[in-house]
């Protein structure tokens, strides 16, 4: 114990030394970079011009996904995914509340990690972007025509959904691995019975080609390690998936020491094609489960929750030749596969070296059964047999690696706070640039695909400190944009990011921009409570329940005077935006509503629930400045005592 604390101190000291060294050198570079007119020109996107790339940043504990432009670093949008979003009513409107349902009930928040854009033949196709909720394990699919969350599936038997949500090269599967192993099925047992009893579920979620609909195809029940990150094989290694593990010690307490004892942990190599075949032939065991599947329909503008009651599990020892362990030093974090699919890079986070495994050597070792023992019945390959090589002393604390498609890899080093460029074949370091400060992820558009767009790299820093004007103790994180077209990386820009980005995904604007939807067509609106014409607007009472079918167009609500509502009623405002013009949303806010506002897009219907509690005449209004007469876009509701017998009535312009 004491010894390990000492070595941690040493590590910190060393980190300090290296960062301070780097700082003195790089401050000069940094200053020059910031002042150099060329850097300014490279990130300047003139007013009215468009960025070259979209970048989707995970929001971490914001639970949401943010959309930026590169190279400008301008933020365009925050897409609510796992968190309620009062800005537009996501998770508050009756239509979207089901999106956040889980087996634990309504969970209005999550920790959103690892965006990954759909691919065809290993290339970005820009249909959807997948993200994972880390805390209450969920995978979400965001549509890239509407930039809205369309589907969220809960992952049972999982906890700390971290080695997610990475996709295979034709988007056959989105993969979700558990960081925390748990008893499967859950049971009431002493925590110290962890070893042997806890399982790590790796879930392969199929993605329907046309609709993107997700369904858990199978869960691979692995030994109780921590499955940290993962990436698909591609090209020659398509059909495999690789997961880094730590805590192969299977400690259940003080992991920072107890899970750092083994010199090597594993990368688990999973031949999912083999398991898919096994499952398609009737293999696997169905086990009872309970998990939510939430789907949003753009026709009805409504989300529905289906509770699923069963999941197919696979015991890896029952499928010979499907799962192997690749010994990898020092609690590897990132697990990255180069664009050709030949190399699997283990970023040993407590190490100064990078481990590069060769896919060809791995296959060769498997074919020749060159095993070095086994763990829980899973063969362990010998480290020396599969190693392509190491990048020696590249930095301290490697976390993640991306690729530029020109034979280079870019690895972030957290402890030494730098981005390091190295050659995949020679494994020589080409350049290193300091990051301000303590870089986590790095993203190159398409950097996790067979065809990266190697023009920019964005590093996502964990510590901001003095990079911007101070805003009290709590700061946004900071991203840094590098030009990577030359031999040396050039720092171009700092820009703040929202929440805590755990990875990002970038894609050329020309793939997404032309298909971005502008409005929802009113004639395609299939919402049960839509008022498609002003003639359809009305108020209906069913006991205590009151349904108000309302429409909105510049700049009035129909109806805007409503009487006959009583204290204790349960009032539903179903509001349809009749505009059919790009970027003319209307908002709706009701005084005293205990939820949020609604922001309703042209052609859309949304519903706000309101319980009138006080007698009087209460106003509602449009929250989105919609026209020169926006301030006039208002109305009144008369609320009478519970026992009054005032009839329902409604009007406009009378």
């Amino acid at each position, binding site marked *: 114990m004491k010894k390990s604390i000492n070595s941690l101190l040493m590590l910190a000291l060393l980190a300090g030394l290296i960062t301070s060294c780097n700082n003195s050198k790089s401050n000069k570079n940094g200053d020059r970079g910031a002042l150099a007119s060329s850097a300014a020109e490279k990130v300047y996107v003139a007013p009215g011009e468009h960025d070259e790339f979209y970048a989707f940043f995970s929001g971490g504990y914001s639970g949401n996904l943010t959309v930026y432009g590169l190279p400008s670093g301008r933020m365009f949008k925050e897409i609510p995914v796992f968190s309620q979003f009062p800005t537009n009513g996501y998770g508050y409107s009756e239509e979207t509340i089901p999106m956040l349902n889980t087996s634990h009930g309504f969970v209005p928040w999550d920790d959103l990690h690892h965006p990954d854009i759909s691919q065809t033949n290993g290339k970005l196709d820009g249909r959807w972007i997948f993200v994972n909720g880390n805390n209450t394990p969920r995978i979400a699919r965001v549509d890239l025509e509407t930039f809205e969350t369309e589907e969220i599936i809960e992952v049972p038997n999982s906890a700390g959904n971290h080695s997610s949500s990475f996709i295979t090269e034709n988007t056959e599967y989105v993969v979700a691995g558990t960081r925390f192993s748990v008893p499967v099925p859950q049971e009431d047992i002493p925590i110290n019975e962890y070893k042997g009893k806890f399982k790590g579920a790796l879930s392969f979620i199929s993605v329907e080609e046309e609709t993107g609909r997700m369904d858990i195809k199978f869960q691979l029940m692995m030994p109780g390690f921590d499955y940290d990150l993962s990436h698909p094989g591609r090209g020659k290694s398509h059909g495999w998936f690789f997961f880094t593990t730590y805590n192969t010690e299977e400690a259940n307490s003080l992991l920072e020491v107890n899970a750092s004892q083994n010199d090597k942990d594993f990368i688990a190599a999973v031949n999912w094609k083999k398991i898919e075949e096994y499952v398609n032939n009737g293999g696997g065991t169905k086990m009872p489960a309970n998990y939510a599947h939430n789907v949003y329909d753009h026709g009805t503008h409504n989300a529905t929750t289906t509770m699923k009651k069963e999941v197919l599990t696979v015991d890896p020892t029952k499928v010979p030749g499907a799962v192997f362990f690749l010994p990898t030093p020092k609690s590897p974090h990132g697990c990255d596969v180069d664009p050709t699919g030949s190399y699997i890079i283990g970023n040993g986070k407590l190490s100064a070296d990078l481990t590069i495994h060769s896919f060809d050597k791995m296959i060769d070792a498997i074919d020749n059964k060159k095993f070095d023992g086994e763990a829980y019945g899973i063969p362990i390959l010998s480290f020396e047999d599969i190693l392509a090589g190491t990048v020696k002393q590249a930095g301290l604390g490697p976390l993640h690696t991306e690729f530029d498609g020109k034979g280079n890899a870019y690895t972030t080093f957290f402890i030494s706070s730098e981005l390091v460029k190295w050659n995949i074949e020679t494994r020589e370091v080409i350049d290193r640039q300091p990051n301000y400060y303590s870089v986590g992820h790095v993203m190159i558009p398409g950097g996790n695909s067979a065809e990266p767009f190697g023009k920019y790299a964005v590093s996502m820093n964990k510590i901001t400190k003095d990079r911007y004007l101070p805003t009290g103790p709590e700061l946004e994180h900071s991203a840094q944009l590098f030009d990577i077209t030359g031999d040396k990386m050039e720092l171009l820009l700092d820009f703040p990011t929202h929440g805590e980005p755990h990875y990002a995904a970038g894609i050329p604007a020309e793939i997404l921009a032309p298909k971005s939807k502008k*409005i929802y067509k009113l004639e395609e609106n299939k919402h049960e409570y839509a008022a498609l014409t002003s003639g359809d607007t009305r108020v209906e009472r069913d006991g205590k329940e009151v349904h108000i079918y309302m429409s909105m*167009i*510049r700049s009035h609500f129909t109806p805007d005077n409503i009487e006959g509502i009583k204290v204790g009623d349960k009032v539903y405002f179903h509001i349809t935006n009749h*505009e*059919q*013009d*790009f970027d003319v949303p209307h908002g709706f806010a009701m005084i005293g509503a205990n939820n949020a506002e609604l922001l309703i897009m042209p052609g859309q219907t949304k519903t706000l629930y309101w319980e009138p509690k006080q007698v009087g005449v209460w106003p509602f209004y449009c929250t989105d400045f919609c*026209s*020169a*007469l926006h301030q006039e876009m208002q109305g009144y509701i008369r609320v009478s005592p519970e026992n009054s017998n005032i009839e329902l009535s409604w009007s406009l312009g009378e």
Partner: protein
Amino acid sequence: MKKAGIIMIIGSLLLLGLFKFPLWNIMLGAPQYPEPLGMNIYITGIKGVSEFDIQNIDGLNHYIGMRTIPKTEDMWEFEVFPLVIGGMVALGVVVGFLGFFGKVNHWWFIGWFALMSVLGIMGMYDFNLWLTDYGTNLDPNAIMKMTNPDGTPMSYKPPLLGYQKMLNFDVDSWPHIGAYLMFVGMVLTVIAFFIGKKEWKKKVFATT
């Protein structure tokens, strides 16, 4: 008069383009409409350049009290124009055929052109009357009542031809493909006249 007859037939057939392509186009651009709103005027009715342009133009116009853009059934012109154009095409083709076989002389060709020109000018006159009415006959309860510096109510009549700045909008009004086809067709009938004149002389010379 073989050549002249064929040119006459082709010339009058080009008017059929008016059934497929717009006669006129009016575009409304403004800073907040980087993709301008537009209407295409066909001889059979008015359509938006993009799917919801008419609805959106009407939405804007209601602030200043303009009526909504007429539907096909709201204007007699959209019934009569197709009949007139159809009739003129038929007439031109018949005249061309008769010319081809030497039954009528070239003066029939220029006669057709003259009739078409008179009808065209009448059509433009009618169109301008409609534009004037549409742009000046405003709802007295309009939300915004704009006046010229001299106190007279502002007119929102789009230009018959060309560009005009109207409040925050840049308005462009120009002929469209249908009109250009008609123009080319009419020029062809004039060419048919001159060629026919030569061919007729030869014919008369040959027979005497």
